[in-house]
């Protein structure tokens, strides 16, 4: 037939479906994730870095550079994981399986600490427990006349406590989800078999939730070893180094090669344990599918211990959510952190420069540095929310549409990599790649664009996950029926997929926004004085002895986060009239 030779418009060659879009997605993911990591690895083996690996690992310096910080890092990792699993698991058990009073309230409060940035909790700790060891203001407790021992004010113990107070809610979220899937029939069958409560817990409940417990443990471990803000604020003043702070220090003093080697080692530590945890779980059958109807779940009767256990749970939640926020707020109003609740005024907020207070620094409302940092931070949050949503959708679309291809498999693996990479190491990799230009790309260090690209890459696993959920929501039929009309890919995205996915996309973009404006570990290395960000400013003020400014800025971050959440909720409920029933 002649038409075979002419290839008229509208005929699609079927052999290589979507090769262009697949390659585009692969290109983006490679640029964002693979290149920086390969670059940092290549740099440590280049001529510029000759001998650095040996120096870091096997020289006289290596204890200070690596092994000492590694010990601290591992100790923090294991102890945080243990503490988080115990506290998070305990609260999850109370909320999911028992008749504890105010279950919903506790369940909600237990998820909140993770919403508060970890540097906020660390700053709150300092405001309470600072002693005079490193000079500067003392905290509230010393202000009341009690002596705070060094071990409680600085170093390992407070770092550990703050990390647990921050990350236990992560463990709670994971474990409570697993506990919620346990059918009450399972428990009742054990009761009929005559098992006592403790036996049921050990023999039935624990084995069923073990995968979730392991997952919670490896996640909190990786989070703790990656955390920069808490050991930097509470450990560095007394020279307690972790891999993250050591890496920060090395880059800060220009020892970039050593810094990069430390970054790679930090990635390995974090990745190995996440991988081990994953391996332990993946061999097991998933129990979550064995559900059936389940009915109304019957709860453990706590009996006489009901109220004492409630008190314990409430105190944990109260101390980790309300107390830090109240302290931060009070501290930003009180002239002296040793007297948090007296002489409140608004100097740190709206005061003019006054030589008698804080070396003449004006309040944040009149501080041009803080104002521009606020604008840049919010701008960064918005920009990253947009870029991650776009990239996440594109990648998720490719992964959903072209499941069985090598390119898709490669994309899938690459998008998961940032999960294994601590933020500060990611920041280091981005400096390595974009610090000087390469190929057609100019040097981007200190630019807004670099922050946007790095944050987009860092949040890639999250945004792809959101994108996947969204794409699943829009069923294949809806898109195919649009395809039948002849609408092109872009038009279908704009007219069908996007409107339907708006709710999911909005909430995903919002979470990205909040994650970015309260992130410190990723941006702390990419920050320059020309491109200030609120979280970094708070860290700077705190480490230079102006905790009230740090606290006031942190309150700003918290307020923006909460406002963003409320705003998006409102927006969502108005934008989709077709969902009303």
């Amino acid at each position, binding site marked *: *037939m002649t*038409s*075979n030779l002419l290839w008229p*418009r*509208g*005929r*699609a*060659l*079927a*052999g290589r479906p979507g090769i262009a879009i697949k390659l585009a997605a692969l290109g983006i993911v490679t640029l964002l994730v693979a290149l920086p990591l390969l670059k940092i690895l290549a740099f440590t083996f280049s001529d510029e870095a000759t001998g650095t690996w040996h120096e870091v690992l096997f020289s006289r310096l290596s204890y200070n550079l690596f092994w000492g910080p590694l010990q601290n890092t591992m100790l923090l990792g294991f102890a945080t994981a243990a503490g988080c699993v115990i506290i998070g698991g305990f609260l999850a058990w109370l909320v999911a399986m028992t008749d504890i009073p105010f279950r919903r309230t506790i369940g909600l409060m237990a998820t909140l600490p993770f919403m508060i940035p970890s540097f906020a909790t660390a700053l709150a700790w300092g405001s309470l427990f600072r002693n005079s060891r490193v000079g500067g203001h003392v905290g509230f407790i010393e202000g009341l006349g009690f002596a705070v021992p060094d071990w409680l004010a600085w170093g390992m113990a407070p770092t550990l406590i703050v990390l647990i107070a921050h990350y236990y809610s992560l463990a709670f979220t994971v474990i409570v989800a697993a506990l919620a899937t346990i059918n009450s029939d399972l428990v009742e069958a054990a009761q009929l078999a005559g098992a006592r409560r403790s036996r049921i817990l050990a023999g039935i409940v624990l084995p069923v939730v073990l995968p979730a417990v392991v997952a919670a443990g490896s996640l909190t471990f990786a989070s703790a070893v990656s955390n920069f803000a808490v050991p930097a604020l509470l450990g560095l003043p007394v020279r307690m180094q972790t891999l993250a702070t050591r890496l920060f220090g090395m880059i800060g003093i220009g020892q970039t090669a050593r810094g990069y080697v430390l970054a790679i080692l930090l990635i390995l530590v974090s990745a190995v344990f996440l991988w081990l945890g994953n391996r332990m779980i993946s061999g097991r059958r998933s129990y979550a599918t064995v559900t059936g109807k389940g009915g109304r779940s019957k709860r453990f009767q706590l009996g006489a211990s009901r109220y004492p256990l409630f008190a314990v749970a409430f105190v944990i939640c109260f101390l980790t959510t309300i107390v830090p926020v109240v302290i931060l707020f009070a501290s930003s109003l009180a002239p002296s952190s040793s007297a948090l609740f007296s002489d409140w005024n608004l100097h740190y907020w709206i005061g003019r420069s006054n030589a008698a207070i804080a070396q003449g620094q004006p309040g944040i409302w009149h501080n041009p540095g803080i104002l521009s940092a606020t604008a840049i931070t919010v701008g960064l949050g918005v920009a990253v929310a947009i870029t991650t949503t776009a990239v996440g959708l594109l990648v998720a679309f490719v992964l959903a549409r072209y499941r069985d291809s090598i390119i898709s498999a490669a994309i899938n693996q690459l998008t998961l990599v940032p999960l294994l990479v601590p933020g500060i190491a990611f920041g280091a990799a981005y400096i390595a790649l974009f610090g000087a230009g390469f190929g057609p790309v100019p040097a981007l260090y200190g630019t807004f664009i670099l922050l946007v690209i790095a944050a987009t890459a860092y949040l890639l696993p999250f945004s792809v996950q959101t994108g996947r959920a969204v794409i699943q929501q829009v*069923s294949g*039929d*809806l898109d*195919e*029926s*649009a*395809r*039948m*009309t*002849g*609408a092109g890919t872009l*038009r279908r995205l704009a*007219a*069908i997929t996007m*409107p*339907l996915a708006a709710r999911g996309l909005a909430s995903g973009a919002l979470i990205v926004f909040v994650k970015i404006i309260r992130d410190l570990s990723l941006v702390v290395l990419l920050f320059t004085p020309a491109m200030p960000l609120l979280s970094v400013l708070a860290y700077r003020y705190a480490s230079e002895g102006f905790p009230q400014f740090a606290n006031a800025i942190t309150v700003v971050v918290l307020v923006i986060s909460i406002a963003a959440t409320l705003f998006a909720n409102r927006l969502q409920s108005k934008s*989709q*009239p*077709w*969902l009303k*029933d």
Partner: protein
Amino acid sequence: MIRINSLSRRFGSFEAVKNVSLEVPAGSFMVLVGPSGCGKSTMLRMLAGLETPTRGTIEFNGKTVSDGDGNWTIEPAKRNAGLVFQSYALWPHMTVAGNVDWPLKVAGQGKQERADRVREVLNLLGIENLGNRFPNEISGGQQQRVAIARMIAPRPGILLFDEPLSNLDAKLRVEMRSELLRIHRATSATSVYVTHDQVEAMTMASHVAVLNEGRIEQFGSPSELVAEPSSAFVATFVGTPPANLVDADLIPPGHPLRKGNRTGRLMFRPEDISVCSGPGPASIEMDFAEISPLAGRSMITGTKNGLRLTAVTDGDFRFSVGDKVHFLLPLQPAACFDNEGKRV
């Protein structure tokens, strides 16, 4: 006109459609019928251009639209075909009118032209007063009409239906059957309709293709299929109730058909089988299974050792579970099949 030539579709090692060839003239209503997993939906998706055949070609009105051997297919929108999805696939964020309008907008039609056409097809489907509703605000039957309106609005020459009635209740399904035929005639398009329900096939089709395991078992008009089934599979798949198949060695010893060494399976129509009051040399004794009145007659079914017999007969019968029923087979079978199920 639709011509399908040696069409095959393979998914990995699984061959969903195997070497299918058929042809229907313009204006026909072709039904692809078969059990689930027989490849009928894959056929339809290839006709729609959503899948590319592995081998073989599809022609619409003399123009090749898919060529599995050349590995190309014309885009769904450019082959002059419309598809109604089993799930209807109405876009939930557009109103009824919006759903019908959007494909016309994509096609680049002017505003007034579109408005006229939307009104026209909504009228044709009898849903002109639902234009401003959202899909979640109307009933299942109305959603079905919207899906059809949306399909026919751009005036496609070929209408494709993927089990469109399977989500409706029994009464609505009967109504929509005639409604669909009315639309089919009003548009003078060629229709291809996929279903697993042979009643739909028998009542609506001008041409039926019975599919089984990716192959066409038989292609013909509904009456041909019932009168002259070409395989045991077709014989037991079509007809209400479908015909009975009895292994030759299960014919009772006293029956004339027992003479001679017959093998294979014999087909008996339900209306040719009678029920007798007591055991006889030529009757088959079975366990009573069910009885139901059917247009003034009785449909009686018995089972025994995997054999199932249905008779449609006059007379007033009273059976209850545990009773024995005695069926009397006619002297001649309506058809014979060999052990592979082929007609002999």
